[in-house]
């Protein structure tokens, strides 16, 4: 063979080699990028790509999209050329997309975690160096990825609806944005449900409840989409609309974080701190709410007293619910948790309430609610004393009853949480009482306080048909409504405002010894083995020592 004939062969051989090198480089780059990804996300993506469930759902989504495209166009008929039918077509695509996003993806997240517990692969995963937050993040990331895949499959159809006129880009984006948020929120709820039990029969019960809830959310989302499509497009230019949306998103993020950390804390090793992160999120959530309500009161509300009502009612409910969960925690701190306790004077004063424990949780809930009352008092003072022209004057009804309302709400929360905590402490002498059971006890106590007087009231011929009376002293709902239901303070107000706060104070004092025991916990030193390893790790991470200049000529 001649030398000329060989040359092209060499070039041909070089080309695949360079392609191979290029592919190897891409492979290495992808590998390096995947190193930064959550390992569960990588594993679940690999599994999903091979799973029948994903293939069927994805195929059905595409199929339904095509069918609706053909069917919708056929129904609209020739009017499609000059009419504005994007809006109708969009609703069909929305239903097709909402089902996988609001039902399949969240339920898949639940099954993913529940299945790991059933197959006991969760145990194998939990003894790696993955922490519970990484596990929940991985599962959520997998849900988000599936959501994006479904979204990308239907996106050409959504673009098609815009071309049909009758719907603007902002409306499409707005609806899809909230649909994605709802999908993620339901996924984190489903993940939390997946952590609640590893018992098979309870998982079946949870599955049924979850499917019912997801289908309900799916149905409700039609209402949201229909309202948005028919009415909201006109308010997109309104600044207050976007401010309200920012507030909704803030609330969403805070509750999302709360649920995320709750799921992670459920997976956290028993001797570890399961509470502090959740408490930080609760307080951040409260601060965000205070910020938004303050802004609403000052700017669009212009000192409207209704803002203060909404604020106090929400905060009372929020801290009661959070308190019901926190008071179910164990009073014992493991040596591991004690190693991380705040040590300085200021740290102990301000951060002790973030330590795990039912007593500190009780005090955090009560003091936070008290701070809300103080804020409302300052607002009343600001409006009354300085007579700020900027604010509308508080109505007589508002100034007279807003503070008594706040005091009564605080007293009820203090009383019921405190009674619940005493009961939990008592029951723990005989049996194990977990967080869920503790929360149920709290709910039961309030139901008894509300239900027993109501039943007596309804069954007594002399009381039936009459208005509020002191029999309902234990009923927080009717008592609070009664206090603010009319201008000026009602007849039983002095009794209510004396007896309930005194009872709350008594219960609070009865709980103090338990709180003090928890406050007395102090930081303990790390074991020598741990300190030695930490020192070795720190030394390994420290930069190499700089050469010492010994000569001016160096």
């Amino acid at each position, binding site marked *: 063979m001649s030398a000329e004939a060989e040359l092209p062969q060499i070039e041909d051989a070089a080309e695949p080699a360079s392609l191979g090198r290029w592919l190897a480089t891409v492979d290495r780059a992808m*590998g*390096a990028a995947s*190193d930064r990804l959550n*390992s*569960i996300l*990588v*594993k679940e993506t*690999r*599994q999903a790509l*091979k*799973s029948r469930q994903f293939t069927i759902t994805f195929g059905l989504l595409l199929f339904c999209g095509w069918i609706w495209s053909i069917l919708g166009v056929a129904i609209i008929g020739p009017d499609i050329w000059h009419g504005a039918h994007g809006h109708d077509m969009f609703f069909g695509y929305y239903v097709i997309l909402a089902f996988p996003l609001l039902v399949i993806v969240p339920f898949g997240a639940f099954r993913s975690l529940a299945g790991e517990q059933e*197959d*006991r*692969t969760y*145990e*194998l*995963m*939990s*003894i*790696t*160096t*993955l*922490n519970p937050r990484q596990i929940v993040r991985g599962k959520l990331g997998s849900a988000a990825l599936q959501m994006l895949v479904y979204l990308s499959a239907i996106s050409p159809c959504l673009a098609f609806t815009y071309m049909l006129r009758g719907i603007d880009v902002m409306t499409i984006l707005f609806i899809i944005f909230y649909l994605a948020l709802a999908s993620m929120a339901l996924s984190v709820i489903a993940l939390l449900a997946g952590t609640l039990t590893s018992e098979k029969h309870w998982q079946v019960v949870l599955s049924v409840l979850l499917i019912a809830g997801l289908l309900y959310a799916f149905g409700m989302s039609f209402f949201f989409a229909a309202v948005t499509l028919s009415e909201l497009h006109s308010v997109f230019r309104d600044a207050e609309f976007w401010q309200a949306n920012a507030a909704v998103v803030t609330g969403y993020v805070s509750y999302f974080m709360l649920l995320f950390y709750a799921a992670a804390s459920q997976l956290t*090793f*028993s*001797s*570890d701190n399961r509470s502090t992160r959740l408490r930080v999120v609760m307080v951040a959530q409260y601060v965000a709410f205070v910020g938004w309500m303050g802004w609403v009161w000052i700017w669009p509300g212009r000192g409207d007293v209704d803002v203060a009502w909404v604020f106090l009612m929400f905060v009372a409910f929020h801290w009661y619910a959070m308190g019901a969960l926190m008071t179910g925690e164990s009073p014992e701190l*493991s*040596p*591991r948790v004690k*190693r991380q306790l705040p040590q300085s004077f200021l740290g102990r004063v301000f951060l002790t309430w973030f330590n795990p424990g039912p007593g500190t949780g009780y005090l955090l809930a009560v003091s936070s609610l008290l701070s809300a009352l103080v804020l409302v008092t300052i607002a009343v003072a600001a409006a009354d004393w300085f007579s700020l022209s900027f604010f509308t004057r508080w109505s007589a009804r508002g100034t007279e009853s807003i503070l008594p309302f706040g005091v009564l709400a605080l007293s009820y929360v203090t009383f019921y949480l405190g009674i619940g905590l005493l009961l939990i402490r008592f029951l723990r002498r005989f049996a194990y009482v977990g967080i869920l059971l503790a929360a149920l006890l709290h709910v039961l106590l309030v139901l008894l306080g509300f239900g027993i007087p109501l039943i007596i009231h309804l069954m007594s011929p002399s009381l039936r048909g009459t208005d509020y009376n002191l029999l309902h002293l234990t009923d927080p709902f009717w008592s609070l409504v009664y206090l603010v239901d009319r201008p000026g303070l009602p007849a039983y107000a002095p009794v209510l405002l004396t007896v309930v706060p005194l009872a709350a104070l008594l219960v609070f004092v009865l709980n103090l010894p338990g709180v003090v025991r928890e406050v007395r916990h102090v930081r303990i030193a790390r*074991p*020598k*083995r*741990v300190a*030695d*390893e930490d020192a070795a790790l720190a030394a390994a991470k420290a930069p190499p020592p700089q050469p010492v200049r010994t000569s001016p000529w160096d």
Partner: protein
Amino acid sequence: MADSHPMIELRHLHRFFGDTRAVDDVSFAVQPGQVFGYIGPNGAGKTTSMRILATLDLPTAGDATVDGFSVVNDPDRVRRRLGFMPDYFGTYPNVNVREYLDFFARAYQMHGDKRADAVERVMDFTGLDVLADKPTDGLSKGMKQRLCLGRALIHDPGVLVLDEPAAGLDPRARIEVRRMIRTLADDGKAILISSHILTELAEICDVVGIIERGKLLAMGSVEEIQQIGQQKAATGDGATNAVNVRVLGGATALGQWLAEQAGVSQLNVNGEAATFLHAGDLEAEADLLRSMIEAGFRVVAFGSKQQTLEDVFMQVTEGLVQ
């Protein structure tokens, strides 16, 4: 000078489930390079102790340490040092062998070439390299056992806790698993292994602990444990020894003679040999031999069978479950 500590240490470990004492004051230590065999009937507390060591459960009282770190207070540090192979497989659907090991390597925060090397090393060691692309749920039981051992080894831990690693395997696979365990121990790893196949443990274990109803009944090297058995037999704690006798001219008459002797049971005569169980200590055994010779039997062999780990296990435990 750095503190020396065993790689595995159980200190007065207790684990109660209601009234059931699953683990009751168990203490032992395993040094680097040592294989500790954990023997006990079903429900004895082996798996519970191992789960506590693997940071899957908490003790009711006492503590366990791995490389000096408490499983209660420093589970994260323990997990970096410990590989656990439970008595179940824990495989994922739609994942092949390489992806399965890669996932666990990622879960141990291994990156890039280090991760790829670890996966290759483990597949090579366990002989799974030829099945790298096979789905994990389609593997045979033996291969799944290898995969589980591979998963436990992926981060090259200094401590291995293996719960029934050879259960349900065919003889060849058992021998291979045994070889792998010995290699790992020779590599300096401290290994805690439980098994029902006691002969197997006798061959690979340096130290053996017998547990029943949560209590550690005996502990020591295989020889020490066998001595304990011999001593028990010698002190006549109701123990019976298997005796083999060979006489010239056929053992039929000997069989008839033995049947009349006290303490002899389960007599079996075959040609010139007779085997039977004899209740009593070594003195009683010697008396029996003397009587046999005086009765005119031409005894050419007389011996108690060597105590095996199985015999000792049967003597030490009572076969009670909780």
